[in-house]
């Protein structure tokens, strides 16, 4: 099948689809009078009368807890389901096929995914058969197998004293990019670093306000543009500002975007290119991933990695019952390590990813 033939078919299809769309649109317009609703979000309608609202308010930040929280503390309480499966393993005297199925189910329930689960269990099974392992040993093998995936890779955030360091945060909508930046800024400012936040999410309403709130709270500088402004200009300004002020670290917040939106991914590439233009900058591009994400997480990671050379993953909202197993697939397939984990709402609830703890907690 030649490319030209495929293109030809697509073109035909495109024409047909487009024609159908046009017809549909015309019908809609006639029926509903779609005018105002069709306005894109970025352009506020001119001269809308001010709505009857009171000024917005912000919630006071929760005070920081005294002790550094650990992943295990937060994970422990929610691991009952997996733990019971693990406890029951081999309870019928030697592991039988039902035990393996239970184990498979538990891994899939943790969002590890069918393919990665099979790969992990195949490895464990082979070893277990080889050394005629008992149930306890099988679980140890399983732990090791998972560890061998997540314990690899460089989990430090690129940082060089005296240089300009840029950490950029990307991901789909609603994963917690802005909150992650806020937490990280708090941490970095506390350790004496001079931090500039770039509010390059100019799309979502009040995203810059959200970041501004945090900037003020933690004592970081903020560079922002108008709502709907070119995010590239914000990044450009932030980089310049950081260079002039001799800042240590720029944290770039980007608008959430689905990895399937070509134009938005192109925009992201552009942001990355603008960052690249500052010579000598140490770069970290972190994909923020919601722990409750299912198998689509892998597609997200693949597309974002393709577009902007992602260097690591931030796994957020791990304080719920979601287990974030998709990071196994992401690391196994793309080699992207988890670097940070979000485990709560306060500024201190962002911790380094500890593979042993992660796996332990999985089996707690």
């Amino acid at each position, binding site marked *: 099948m030649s490319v030209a033939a495929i293109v030809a078919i697509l*073109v035909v299809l495109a024409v*047909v*689809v487009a*024609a159908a769309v046009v017809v549909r649109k015309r019908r809609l317009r006639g029926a509903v009078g779609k005018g105002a609703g069709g306005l894109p979000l970025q352009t506020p309608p001119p001269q809308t009368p001010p709505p*009857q609202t009171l000024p917005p*308010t912000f919630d006071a930040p929760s005070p920081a807890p005294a002790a550094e929280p650990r992943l295990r503390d937060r994970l422990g309480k929610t691991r009952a389901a997996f733990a019971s499966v693990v406890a029951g393993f081999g309870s019928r005297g030697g592991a039988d096929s039902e035990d393996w199925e239970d184990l498979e189910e538990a891994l899939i329930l943790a969002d590890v995914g069918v393919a990665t689960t099979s790969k992990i269990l195949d490895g464990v099974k082979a070893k277990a058969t080889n050394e005629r392992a008992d149930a306890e040993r099988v679980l140890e093998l399983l732990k090791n197998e998972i560890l061998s995936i997540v314990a690899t890779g460089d989990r430090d955030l690129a940082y060089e004293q005296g240089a300009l360091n840029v950490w950029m945060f990307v991901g789909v909508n609603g994963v917690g990019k802005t909150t992650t930046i806020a937490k990280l800024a708090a941490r970095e400012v506390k350790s004496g670093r001079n931090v500039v936040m770039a509010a390059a999410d100019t799309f979502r309403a009040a995203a810059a306000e959200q970041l501004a709130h945090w900037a003020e709270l933690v004592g970081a500088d903020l560079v922002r543009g108008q709502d709907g402004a070119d995010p590239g200009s914000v990044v450009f300004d932030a980089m310049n500002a950081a260079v002039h002020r001799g800042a240590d670290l720029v944290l770039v917040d980007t608008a959430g975007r689905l990895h399937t939106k070509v134009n938005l991914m192109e925009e992201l590439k552009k942001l990355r290119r603008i960052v690249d233009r500052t010579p000598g900058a140490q770069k970290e591009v972190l994909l923020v991933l919601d722990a409750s994400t299912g198998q689509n997480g892998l597609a997200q990671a693949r597309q974002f990695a393709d577009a902007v050379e992602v260097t690591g993953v931030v796994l957020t909202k791990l304080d719920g019952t979601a287990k974030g197993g998709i990071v196994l697939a992401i690391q196994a397939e793309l080699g992207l390590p988890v670097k940070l984990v979000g485990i709560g709402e306060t500024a201190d609830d962002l911790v380094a990813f500890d593979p042993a703890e992660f796996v332990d907690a999985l089996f707690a």
Partner: protein
Amino acid sequence: MFDSLSDRLDGIFSRLRNRGKLTERDIDEVAREIRLALLEADVNVKVVKGFIARVKERANGAEVQKSLSPAQQVIKIVHEELVTTLGGVSGKLSMSPKPPTVVMLCGLQGSGKTTASAKLARLLKSQGLQVLLVAADLQRPAAVEQLRILGERLDVPVWSAPDEGPKDPVAVAKSSLDEAARLGKNIVIVDTAGRLQVDDELMGELVRVRDAVRPSNTLLVVDSMTGQEAVNVAVTFDELVGLDGIVLTKIDGDARGGAALSVKEVVGKPILFVGTGEQLDDFEAFHPDRMASRILGMGDVLTLIEKAEEVFDEGVAAKAQEQMAKGQFTLEDFLEQMRQVKKMGPIGNLLKMLPGLPAEMRKAELDEGEIGRIEAIICSMTPAERRDPALINGPRRVRIAEGSGTATSDVNALLKQFKMVQQMMRSMGGGKRPKLRGMDLSEITGGK
């Protein structure tokens, strides 16, 4: 990466003999594949079990229709069962006999509550209802501001907490009813803070907000990319707060959306709306047939249409349609259309959305650079040549090839392909409105 379910079932059935009737053994064998497909689509493990059992029961002894292969027959059964489980087309809120009707949106952080609130407000406003938005998310910084801006764009008032004083979402919710009465609003949409279902404190607060406004529609907002966790979330929210319906968000991505099935199955409440994009009017009633096709990873013409809708310039499309109807589709139009198609994303991805394409074509490794070459060839033609390719004789071909940096054989191939396109156009251009269904090569694409 994953083959579609139909490909895999085809593989199984080619090994079996077509006996005209599905036997238990056939079905057991395909049940495994269906299970994998559903799990890959993020349907909850436990939900998958029950679903497979139902499919088995239905499929056992079913006659294979003449027009379908056994694989297609099974998929048809699975598809139908999915549609049944997912429920009917809805998009209807239950209206309170005593206005205002209160809609409360709740869910995890980042599921899209604030955006969904605004989109719902736009939809209801367009239906002639009087809407008041209530910003009861006092947790996330600037959430109130976000809703206020969205309200401004929609020209819908937003009720929020006073600047001074305690930040109490319950009080905000309670006072919103008075405000609605004062403004004569008949719909109140309450946006609440995102919360984990295991956070007892915040769940308690949500219950108090509910009691303050007594919503006739408590809607759970679920991200369509959610994995196995969707079940836990839905069950707990339903237990503690009591749900009346579901809003599924971010379905404009490529997640298969098995969470929809999981949530529907465990809560039993209808999926009312879906969020289909970033704009405020990207919000519509839920269509179970589309979702079913999507979960099964079957070609999705509708997604394709949505993509086309996103990038296609209406004027260009309308012109092309006209040209087509007249049978005057030129290389210039071809070029223009091709550029539009390119905007829809990698061609390989688009092909996957087309149902019924031969497998060899769906799997063809496409060099996107090839498309650039085709563009170059057409761009190297004179306007007259583009309008009338018959002009292009030997010397012209050589010139075009040189101009575009390609070989004469490439030019020849393109011209041949174009002739085919023209023929297809002509055969389709007869009717006033070309039928989309006509493009489907397979019987069961699901959805229309």
